[in-house]
């Protein structure tokens, strides 16, 4: 999109635009009680996966048996799109091994397991920066990178990478809209730590240098909005605005929020920075504040524990690596036999098979549900092409077309219909009268396309290597042939012709023969023979003669 074509931003933000579709979902009844943020305490064991972000997994820096302190870097970033991992409490490393992690596959991944000592001894060397304005944006970015900060809204993209941009940024948009109904972690954070949030926003603003800076909250969280306004007043901050947006799911999505506030559309497969906007989650802002002002790496986050499967829903401040079971216990334990344990909300969350999985940087909600509130979905019926999915799709896609193409494994066609613009919000599946698990089809198609692309890259490498090998073998063969020819030329070639050479060889052979004749023809070993041996020789000679005469006859 060309710079000139873009209309200037309305900095009053009085107008609200609409994105296509979306749903007005009921807020879970339990969530109201979840508001105050409590500390979940230090669990007996912390399980820290080396990959809690998008990008390369971190490389482990500790060994089994080593004592680690709170805030110590235990795994370093590998490459640019990666993030380090820090010990969230002090203790001893008891294992570095694959453990179940919060992931829809249920596959284990490499984790550092720390047995905590309960002391929570912190790392001494503090590099806290009381006034971040003294630092250049690059130094602040380095600080955020070293603190292992990733997008806490859900995707886990390393924040430092997202903040580095080449385009000039008009708007820094701080996303305080909850991802899904039932999740209240951002609400709790803004109510109780508004000053941290505002301070973090100032740091992000100092890095991004935007023309304007806005914090967006939902219109159903007036307390959070008020807390932010109070904090702005307290810090005497004039240039950050707090606005509210209607609570329509999925306004918490980056693209949808941009649409609602600015009316702009992020290009397909593009980034918000392409249209001069950077979006960051409020949790990320608070983490940035802790990393810069207090030199605290990302060691904890706020997680909503809810669902009718837990006794008392709550917002907990949880150390990264705390097993989910510990959270459930902090929420009063299971209320009933639970049907499913989800990481994330009711719309986009995924089921995990065990409560041994740890909370990672991107975990915003743990949802324990019974069969009563979330019964198993009825068996899917055939698509009747009613078009309801199209009406609610916030990405303006044609979900049923994507469904048909995915089912037929026509991935090219699915991509043409914008498969990769799907944000997997689940609106289409939510309204589908045939109960088709549409999102799972799209997720399958996306991962299948990635895996085919990966295979294609591997095949290209194998082809290059094979061709290089064939070329090398050919070259060696040619070189050998040339060398052989050269040797032959050295022996033959140059002086005199073939006939002269043959004559010389013949002459030499003749000389040898003559020499042999002169030295006598009798073999040496026939002297001094015993009569017995002589008889044997005679017999042998006779046999030979007989055979030769016999042979002549025939």
């Amino acid at each position, binding site marked *: 999109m060309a710079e000139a074509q873009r209309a200037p931003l309305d900095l009053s933000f009085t107008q609200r635009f609409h994105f296509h579709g979306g749903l007005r979902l009921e807020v879970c009844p339990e969530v109201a009680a979840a508001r105050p943020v409590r500390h979940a305490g230090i669990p007996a064991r912390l399980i820290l996966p080396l*990959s809690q972000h998008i990008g390369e997994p971190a490389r482990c820096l500790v060994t089994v048996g080593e004592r680690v302190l709170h805030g110590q870097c235990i795994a370093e970033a590998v490459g640019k799109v990666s993030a380090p991992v820090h010990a969230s409490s002090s203790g001893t490393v008891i294992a570095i091994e694959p453990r179940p*992690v919060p*992931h*829809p*596959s249920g*596959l284990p*991944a490499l984790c550092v397991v720390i047995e905590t000592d309960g002391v929570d001894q912190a790392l001494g060397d503090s590099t806290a920066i009381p006034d971040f304005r003294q630092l250049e944006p690059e130094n602040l970015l380095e600080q955020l990178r070293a603190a292992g900060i990733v997008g806490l809204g859900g995707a886990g993209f390393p924040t430092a990478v997202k903040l580095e941009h080449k385009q000039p940024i008009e708007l820094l948009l701080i996303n305080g809209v909850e991802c899904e109904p039932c999740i209240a972690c951002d609400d709790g954070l803004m109510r109780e730590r508004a000053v941290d949030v505002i301070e973090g926003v100032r740091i992000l603003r100092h890095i991004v240098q935007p023309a304007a800076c806005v914090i967006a909250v939902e219109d159903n969280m007036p307390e959070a909005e008020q807390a932010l306004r109070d904090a702005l007043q307290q810090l005497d901050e004039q240039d950050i605005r707090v606005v509210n947006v209607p609570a329509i799911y999925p306004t918490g999505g980056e693209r949808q929020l941009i649409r609602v506030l600015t009316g702009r559309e992020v290009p397909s497969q593009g980034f918000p920075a392409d249209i001069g906007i950077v979006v960051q989650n409020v949790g990320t802002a608070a983490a940035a504040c802790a990393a810069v002002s207090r030199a605290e790496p990302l060691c904890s986050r706020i997680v909503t524990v809810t669902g009718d499967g837990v006794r008392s829903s709550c917002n907990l401040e949880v150390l990264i690596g705390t097993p989910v079971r510990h959270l459930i216990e902090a929420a009063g334990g299971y209320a009933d036999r639970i049907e499913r344990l989800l990481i994330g909300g009711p719309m986009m969350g995924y089921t995990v098979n065990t409560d041994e999985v740890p909370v990672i940087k991107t975990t915003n909600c743990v949802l324990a549900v019974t069969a009563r509130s979330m019964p198993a979905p009825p*068996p*899917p*019926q*055939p698509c009747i092409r009613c078009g309801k999915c199209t009406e609610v799709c916030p990405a303006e896609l044609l979900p049923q077309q994507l469904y048909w193409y995915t*089912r037929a*494994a026509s991935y090219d066609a699915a991509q043409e219909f914008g498969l990769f613009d799907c944000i997997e919000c689940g609106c289409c599946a939510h309204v589908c009268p045939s109960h*088709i*698990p549409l999102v*799972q*089809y799209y*997720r*399958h198609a*996306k*991962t*299948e396309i*990635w*895996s*085919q692309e*990966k*295979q294609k890259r*591997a*095949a*290209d*490498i*194998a*082809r290059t*290597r*094979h061709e*290089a*090998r064939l070329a090398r073998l050919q070259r060696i063969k040619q070189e050998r042939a040339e060398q052989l020819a050269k040797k032959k030329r050295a022996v033959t070639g140059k002086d005199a012709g073939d006939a002269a050479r043959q004559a010389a060889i013949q002459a030499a052979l003749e000389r040898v023969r003559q020499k042999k004749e002169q030295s006598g023809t009798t073999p040496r070993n026939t002297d001094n023979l015993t009569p017995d041996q002589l008889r044997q020789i005679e017999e042998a000679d006779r046999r030979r003669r007989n055979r030769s005469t016999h042979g002549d006859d025939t």
Partner: protein
Amino acid sequence: MLTAIIALGVLSAVIGLILGYAAIRFHVDSDPVVDQVDALLPQTQCGQCTYAGCRPYAEAIAAGEADINQCPPGGEVTIQNLANLLGVDPKPLNPEHGQHKEKTVVRIDEQVCIGCTLCIQACPVDAILGAPKHMHTVITSECTGCNLCIPPCPVECIHIVPVKTTLRDWSWPLPAESAHG
């Protein structure tokens, strides 16, 4: 009459020249069909198709000498892609050439390896590293799983190992279809 003949004659001469020039200017050395077919093959170089590698098989397909269902590592996906490219009906994999299996790689038991270099000579993608009378090892990331190194090994120290799925290459399963699907 004469004008018409001259006009048409001149026209055809001009067009002929243009076509002749285009044939030289846009000449393609290799057969584009062979390249396109080769691009769809998995490049395992295993020879299960009875040809000496993926490219010879691609050449045979392009020449109409080989069928599209002779590549076990590619399986149904490759057959489908080849059928789409060549505009023919897909057919099931010919069992004479083998069964489609999940990708594997090989591993050399380094305690047993005697350093004979025979496997190095057999590897079509130079994925085995070693020197005479020194231990050899497989560069796992480059191994195509063709298993051509296994028969030459005099001490049977090369083993097939499955490639483990990790979080990074895991695929969401396709939802189970109902009876009405």
